[in-house]
């Protein structure tokens, strides 16, 4: 154990703080709206990548900063941004899920083509997994891709596709080998959303915003080289992505940022003329949350160290999505209770504290469901993490799950 901020870390901390002093005013609002990122957001992202404050460990040849993984460096940077309430850059399905997937299993060409533009914020991705009949039971997807010469021809429908209405690209899970058992008949394909034959229909969510979509494919032609790994290996690739998705959804840095905001909110908000922090019911809820955040932060540092050592963290990793999203929801629930009745006016296009609290409070439920619901996470933790037996199959093709 060595967390001393000695030598190079102090220098890094000073460097990041100086960067924030000089450039901080260019940052987009922290926890800003979840929609098509504007120019300001994209410019900020490029600046961060250039300085190595985003995509820090992505190799240089793919456009990253090429630093060795170092947990404390990452923590020093995250803390400096959080304390200054400045955006830590984009976190989205491309950067947090697709990029690590390609670095793990993509071809050299795929890495060169997609990693750089994605981390710089020039290319946005959406995740084409769920279908109307295949949610938790993801391996049952029916969208078909048929090889015709050197192209796949895709037909079918996806649903709940976040960001598809502005994404440039999609990573698609589809069926290429219908004659194979369900998990073995899948492929993972990268395609442009501009390809003819794709239709995107936004779906309005409970937040009042159109955050996700239905996507229809009619004879959509995709070069065969766009497959990641090979035909029939889509389930494996999809699970690599899910691994990163689940770590991203339970991210403890997000908890730290929110904790600071909650402290601030309770210290500045009043009810009947008294500060919330001076009232035991509010203060005690915050104290409990603080303890939980400290535990998850330490856990994340431990996981990152294991990751850097190339150790598979097993059950320690599997608990992150379920535990993290539940805690984040309890945090937004406290924020909603803090803004109180004065926070009830709601216009989803606004970005004030009260709207942000209510938006998180609803959106966090989406995070609990998306990426594999809590029940599915608990199945995975129990079966893969603790080695408990699976549910007996009721019929040959019925089991499985987004696992």
């Amino acid at each position, binding site marked *: *154990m*060595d*967390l*001393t901020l000695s030598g190079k*870390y102090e220098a890094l901390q000073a460097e990041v703080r100086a960067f924030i002093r000089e450039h901080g005013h260019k940052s987009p609002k922290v926890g800003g709206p979840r929609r098509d990122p504007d120019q300001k957001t994209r410019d900020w992202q490029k600046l961060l990548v250039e300085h190595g404050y985003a995509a820090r460990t992505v190799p240089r040849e793919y456009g990253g900063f090429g630093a060795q993984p*170092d*947990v*404390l*460096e990452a923590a020093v940077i995250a803390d400096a941004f959080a304390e200054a309430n400045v955006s830590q850059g984009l976190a989205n399905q491309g950067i947090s899920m697709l990029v690590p997937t390609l670095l793990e299993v993509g071809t050299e060409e795929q890495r060169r083509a997609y990693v750089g533009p994605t981390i710089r914020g020039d290319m946005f991705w959406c995740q084409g997994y769920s279908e109307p009949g295949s949610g938790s039971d993801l391996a049952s997807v029916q969208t078909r891709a048929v090889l015709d010469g050197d192209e796949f021809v895709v037909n079918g429908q996806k649903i709940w596709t976040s960001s598809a209405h502005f994404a440039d690209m999609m990573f698609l899970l589809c069926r290429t080998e219908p004659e194979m058992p369900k998990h073995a008949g899948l492929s993972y394909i990268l395609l442009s959303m501009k390809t003819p034959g794709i239709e995107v229909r936004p779906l309005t969510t409970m937040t009042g915003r159109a955050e996700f979509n239905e996507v229809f494919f009619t004879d959509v032609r995709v070069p065969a080289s766009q497959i990641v790994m090979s035909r029939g290996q889509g389930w494996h690739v999809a699970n690599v992505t899910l691994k990163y998705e689940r770590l991203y959804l339970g991210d403890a840095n997000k908890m730290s940022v929110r904790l600071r905001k909650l402290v601030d909110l309770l210290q500045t908000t009043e009810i009947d003329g*008294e*500060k919330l*922090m*001076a*009232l*035991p019911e509010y*203060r*005690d809820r*915050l*104290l*409990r949350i*603080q*303890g*939980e955040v*400290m*535990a*998850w*932060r*330490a*856990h994340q*540092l*431990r996981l*990152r*160290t*294991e990751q*850097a*050592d190339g150790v598979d963290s097993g*059950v*320690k990793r599997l*608990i992150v999505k*379920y*535990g993290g999203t539940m805690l984040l929801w309890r945090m937004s629930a406290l924020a909603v209770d803090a803004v109180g009745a004065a926070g009830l006016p709601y216009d989803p296009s606004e970005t004030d504290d009260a709207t942000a609290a209510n938006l998180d409070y609803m959106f966090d439920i989406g995070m609990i469901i998306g990426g594999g619901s809590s*029940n599915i*996470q*608990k*199945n995975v*933790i*129990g*079966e893969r*993490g*603790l*080695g*408990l*037996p*699976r*549910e*007996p199959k009721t019929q040959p093709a019925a089991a499985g799950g987004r696992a």
Partner: protein
Amino acid sequence: MRFGLTEEQRLFDDSLRAFLADRVPIETLRQQAQTGRGFDPAIWQGLCELGLPGLLVPESYGGAGLGVLDAALSAEALGHAAAPIPFAASAVMAPLAFANSASRDQQSEFLPRIAAGEMRVGMAFAGIGGQTGDATLTLQGNRLSGRVQGALDAGEATHLLVYLPDGRAALVEAGANGVSAQVRRSVDRTRPVTDLSFENAESAVLDAANDRMAAALRVVDAGRVMLAADTLGAAQYMLDQAVAWAKERVQFGRVIGSFQGVKHTLAEIVTMLEPCRAFVWHAAYAQDALPDEARLFACQVKAHVGDVGREASRMATEVHGGMGFTDLLGLHYWFKRCTFDRQMLGGPQRCREEAARLQGWKLAG
């Protein structure tokens, strides 16, 4: 920079756990529970050979000169075994009390004896460290009078170290004139609580720290981290047992671990418990290396792990059904370990209150 254990720490942990697995079978726990004095001479002897009492004693005084993190790993292993021996006070808080508050002479007189395992120290606090029950201690010169309830590790202690509300500490020999100790079996039969009373007893006063209260609180904090680590170990044991049970016990023609209700209960436990391990490490490390955050870590880890331990130990008992409730499996020893750790040195409510004050979060009125 890394967040994890060193090779030496892993090796030491392995040998300690192997020793405990071998030497603390359930039969031993049952025997010990009869007396409830929290001391088994044979186990103690073996732990002394492993160097446990001297972990935190500086090398110059015959110890290993290790840190609070090393001690926390041992505390976790002892909790996992529900080992009926003194540790948190005797092997951790007492050496730290000498390091923080004793004069040079006092250190060289007592620390080598602690390291050798010939001196075992029971400890109690008056007015600090979450003291409950009676406490009326006074010092006149080096003469100690009054009483204090609920001393930790005092079942078979050779010495007693008590803290006064002003942060001074007084050391007396157990059995000396004017010292009486009433050992009481606690709900946790592996560790007693002891009521102490003193009548003009001669003591060695530990009062060499620049800031005596800060020094006293550092001792309390290290103790809190140990109790959290002990709970972590005990709750982990209960989870391991519950998982094994769920893979074996058959009802409705299936092993119960294949039922989602049971599977999800176990998933809940591991989801809350596993982050506690990193939290305990971080908090223990903070005691030696992060002085600005050490107190907050100690208060929050004691509170959080105490709450998780309560939930986890209840749920793991439930997974065992009626067997969990009986004495047949002995699972209750670990449940009670969590129960004891939670209350000793301040429960979650007390610890969070201190965490709030540390951060200047004052209540109205």
